[in-house]
């Protein structure tokens, strides 16, 4: 039972981590909690479903797993990145010099707008995610890990490793870190700060989109409101790890997933969602800088 809950928790947690990265990277670079990020994740799931529908029309059945996975990831990533970058351009950039509360309210507005937009255009009911993984798995120590769980873990770990390399080893990644540490100075050395911010939104949105497809496949159902709870949980994960810290978001996501799975198994499955918010409250009270965040708010954010 314990091993099984750990497997389930890690699976869920790695998805939280993927979404949390978008919160933390955006916060690191423009100090904004992007409340519309959960909707970007939800839109990724829808884009995945729609792309699979198109694929079926073209005569490729969703059961052709490698093709449908690749296509749904690509479609979700491209669509969500486009949404994320557009939201930044239209709803946040014009408010960059405004008081800090203004872009925050703008973000809440975008979140409500996107939810309603998807509800009106795609319907209010649940959609079935037309992708199923073979049900076999590996059994060990009284527990079972399914191929889908292995796939989710592998994709998440791969993406997080790629992101870490990108941020630490490439010119653009270094420019992102520089911009998060001193935006004015970044401009003075010739970094196009607007472009770096757009790239940050694109990457965060892409990771959320992949998470949207993974969760869609995992639970099998998607609707317009899934971004709300997922967004809040991923935000909790980002705060738990230390908002602004990339490794923090990864750690926070995994810890939150584990906590939820163990809490559901050993305390109460009905209060599963409440654990996340208890964690959020506890962190905000006892360690507002999170596990890996620096105590001084002006330090490095990415």
């Amino acid at each position, binding site marked *: 039972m314990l091993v099984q809950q750990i497997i389930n928790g890690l699976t869920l947690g790695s998805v939280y981590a993927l979404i949390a990265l978008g919160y933390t990277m955006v916060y690191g670079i423009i100090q904004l909690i992007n409340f519309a990020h959960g909707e970007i994740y939800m839109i990724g799931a829808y884009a995945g479903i729609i792309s699979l529908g198109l694929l079926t029309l073209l005569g490729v059945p969703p059961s052709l797993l490698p093709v449908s996975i690749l296509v749904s990831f690509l479609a979700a990533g491209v669509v969500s990145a486009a949404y994320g970058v557009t939201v930044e351009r239209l709803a946040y950039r014009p408010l960059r010099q405004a008081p800090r509360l203004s872009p925050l309210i703008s973000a809440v507005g975008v979140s409500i707008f996107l939810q309603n937009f998807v509800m009106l255009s795609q319907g209010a009911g649940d959609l079935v995610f037309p992708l199923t993984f073979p049900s076999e798995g590996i059994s060990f120590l009284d527990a079972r890990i399914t191929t889908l769980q292995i796939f989710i873990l592998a994709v998440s770990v791969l993406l997080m490793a790629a992101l870490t390399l990108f941020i630490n080893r490439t*010119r653009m990644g*270094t*420019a992102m*870190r*520089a911009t998060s*540490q*001193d935006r*004015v*100075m*970044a*401009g*003075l*050395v*010739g*970094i*196009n*700060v*607007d472009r770096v911010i757009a790239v940050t939104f694109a990457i965060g949105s892409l990771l959320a989109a992949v998470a949207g497809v993974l969760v869609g496949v995992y639970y099998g159902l998607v609707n317009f409101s899934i971004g709300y709870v997922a967004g809040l949980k991923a935000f909790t994960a980002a705060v738990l790890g230390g908002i602004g810290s990339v490794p923090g978001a990864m750690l926070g996501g995994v810890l939150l997933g584990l906590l939820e799975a163990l809490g559901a198994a050993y305390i109460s499955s009905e209060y599963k969602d409440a654990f996340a918010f208890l964690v959020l409250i506890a962190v905000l009270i006892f360690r507002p800088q999170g596990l890996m965040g620096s105590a001084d708010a002006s*330090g*490095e954010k990415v």
Partner: protein
Amino acid sequence: MLDLAGVVTTYGSIEALKGITLSVPEGGIVSLIGANGAGKSTTLMTVSGVQTPVGGEIRFRGERISGLKPHEIAARGIAHVPEGRRIFPKLSVRENLEMGAFLRSASSDDWERVFALFPVLKERLGQPGGTLSGGEQQMLAIGRALMARPSLILLDEPSLGLAPILVSKIFRMIREINREGLAVLLVEQNAKAALSLSSRAYVLETGRIVASGPSADLLSDPAVQEAYLGVKRSGEGTSA
């Protein structure tokens, strides 16, 4: 090379620059002196595009640059070493220097040139910029600017907070990089040192240029001596 004509810059309703006109010739060293709050840093920030002037015009090599974004102005060959150095604290010394060369690919020549000027940076390459001492940070800030291979460098109070021995070292470096053909616009509260380095100077007071001319003339000007060089005139009260 750099020409400001009637430049006005505001912070909200505060007019920090009230019509600044000044020029820096190709390859020259020009200093801009004045008391705290006179508008020296604002002048440099306006040249490099961090502040957009609401009046007047800035030209660089004949082309209008006022209104351009900071990265576009940097791309034209203006490097800015701002007040307080603004090293990227969590980037390593190497990454700080790489970011200086963000717009181009640094050649091994560029690295050698910076290490020749500031050998200490070579020993610190892997260290986070924020862990360097004040003097080392100033060298890193200048080194980072040089990595861009600029044709004009804006230096904002490079001597601030440094021990006297380091101050003279930094000023020697400034003379040396100028000899390689780099034009310098130097902002200093240490007016005496600045005036002995530059060929021309401007004196800024609450957003206006109140005196300008060859540095040697300003050095011997009694009004400048009293206000900025700590020389007392006898038998006179303070003038506004």
